[in-house]
């Protein structure tokens, strides 16, 4: 049973990780808490579902469309709400409300369009599990893990092997300096939001398959927020570790302590962890500059 629970924890945790990486990309590079990430997750879920259901596209094509759609929606959100703030030299705290409103609006719109219905992929897509040494492994979890690893590899490639990746990394160290060096900040910000949106699209599509398609699925962004913060500032692998830690903590508090207060216990443990290690699990220590 312990190993089954471990597996459950990893399954939930890897999903949180996937959602957290996109969140942490925007947070680490721009220092912005972006709740519209949740909206992009929901858009990804619904786009891929609609493509499969109504347009009868094959699943990989639907996934690609959903991912691109979520990416563009993410860029659009940035263009409409964040860029005016930057142009006027206003603080990014004002983006907070915009991102929350986009989050609420998308949930409300999807509720309206779907009439509040819960939907699922036709003909029990990717359901069932296989057994490995007495452990039940759901097929969707394996698929999720593979896609998550592939997309993170793509992300790493973009960040470390391309020009835009270099620009983004430069900007993440020092935005003003990057600007002075002739990097087009508008493009860096748009690119960051695009990549976060793409990741949200992948995560959202997989969530739809793993659980169900419903309008409030974007609420997962709170888990992503926690994973990103617990994992630590400064690097993306932190978000992955954070997600896994939260998944395991949740599963094991449910299994061995009490499942009705599991979220409360989990989050309290995480807050204590942040008190002891303010830089997060794998963040770099930064001395505040005076």
């Amino acid at each position, binding site marked *: 049973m312990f190993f089954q629970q471990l597996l459950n924890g990893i399954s939930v945790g890897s999903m949180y990780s996937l959602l957290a990486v996109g969140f942490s990309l925007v947070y680490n590079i721009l220092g912005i808490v972006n709740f519209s990430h949740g909206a992009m997750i929901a858009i990804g879920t619904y786009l891929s579902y609609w493509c499969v259901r109504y347009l009868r596209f094959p699943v990989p094509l639907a996934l690609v469309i959903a991912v691109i759609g979520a990416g563009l929606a993410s860029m659009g959100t940035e263009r409409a709400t964040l860029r005016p703030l930057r142009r006027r030299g206003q603080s990014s705290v004002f983006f907070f409300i915009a991102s929350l409103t986009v989050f609420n609006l998308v949930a409300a719109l999807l509720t309206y369009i779907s009439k509040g219905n819960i939907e*699922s992929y*036709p003909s029990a897509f990717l359901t069932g599990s296989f057994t490995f040494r007495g452990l*039940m492994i759901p097929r969707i979890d394996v698929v999720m893990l593979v896609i998550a690893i592939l997309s993170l590899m793509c992300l790493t490639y973009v960040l470390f092997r391309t020009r835009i990746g270099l620009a983004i990394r430069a900007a993440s160290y020092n935005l003003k300096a990057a600007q002075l060096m002739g990097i087009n900040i508008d493009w860096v910000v748009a690119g960051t939001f695009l990549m976060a949106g793409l990741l949200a699209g992948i995560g959202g599509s997989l969530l739809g398959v793993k659980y*169900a398609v419903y309008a409030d699925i974007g609420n997962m962004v709170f888990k992503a927020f926690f994973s990103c913060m617990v994992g630590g500032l400064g690097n993306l692998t932190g978000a992955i570790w954070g997600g896994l830690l939260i998944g395991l903590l949740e599963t094991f508090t449910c299994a061995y302590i009490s*499942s009705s207060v599991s979220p409360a216990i989990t989050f309290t443990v995480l807050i204590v962890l942040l008190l002891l290690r303010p830089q997060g699990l794998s963040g770099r220590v930064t001395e505040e500059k005076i």
Partner: protein
Amino acid sequence: MKRLIGLVLSLVLVGSLMASVGAAAKDEPIVIGLITALTGPTSLWGTQERNGALLRAEEINAAGGVLGRQIKFIAYDHKGSPAEGVNAYRKLVDQDRACVVLGTHFSNISLAIAPIAEQKRVPILGQPMEPKVTMPAPGKVNRYSFLAQPSCIEQGQMMARFALEELNAKTAAVLTDKANSYSTSQAEAFRDYFQAHGGTVVAYIEYAGGTVDFKAQLTQIKPKDPDVLYLPQYAQAGGMQVKQARELGIDAVILGSNSLSDPPFVNACGGIEVAKGVHFMFNVDFSDPRFASFLKNYEKRFGEPVVTYHTLFGYDDMTLAVTAIKNAGSTDPEKIRDAIENLKDVPILMGDGKFTMNPKTHRPVNMPSWVFRWEPDGTRKPIKLMYPAEL
């Protein structure tokens, strides 16, 4: 001053709020209100309920109305919030002059409205399953609140009895949402009845609201190998639980509450392949010919099939309200209240087709429920009709 726009807008809003007060007049249509969720996660139920009530109101109007007057039906959103529900009730009563209010299917909202209804003295009739809505304390009845289906305690007990007697279950596991009164009340009733009548509850697991991954809880249940697994849930959580239970290889017979009667439940399971074999309780016989004609009329009116059973709630609640108005012979809310209390053998779609109100509890007298099973072809097969009185 550009900045004054906001101020002006607010004033306009207040003004228009006040302007609409006192717009009701005499000898106009009879106003019947409905408070339900038209937005938010449970809006599907709310819109279905509204459509059902609207359909019935139109049928009655087409047949000449009631007391020679037409029915004006108004539905307001409560967004799932008690404060909103209370506002909606006040708006219906004060502004729209509703003489009877239908709703809500949320116990928590009805619990908040009940004391307000005692002050406003306009009856509210609906489907909140929590018995405290009509009876806040033993022996005490809220005069203006009525429930039109078996309470969650009765439904939980009936399911437990079904498990014991029809399925010969010896052991049961229960999974319940600690943040949802609908779920906890049924789960507790099921557990207590099951244990009191010789069964063993091998696992009783409460989880926190908002959970979507139930593997940690289900993994604890699996080694206990229960005969039945009771899931008193809304369609979404119920569907995910069934799907994940099957993924983990739990092969117990799954029993659920009336929310699992919806197609959205099958969707949340990921298809009928997973949902098949799940038992649920519902107070209508889907094979009843009257039901078939209802389905046809609904599809004709709204251009789409009925999605959830809440449609029936709206439809039957409207029937009951109009019957009460007819029996009272007046639109005086006080007289309608008395009439609702004394409703007897009203023909409705739910239960065994006849509705009688119990004036002592403000709940129906011995309203039966069918236990259904989802079949592999996507139909619901009636297994047994259960009566609360047999408990």
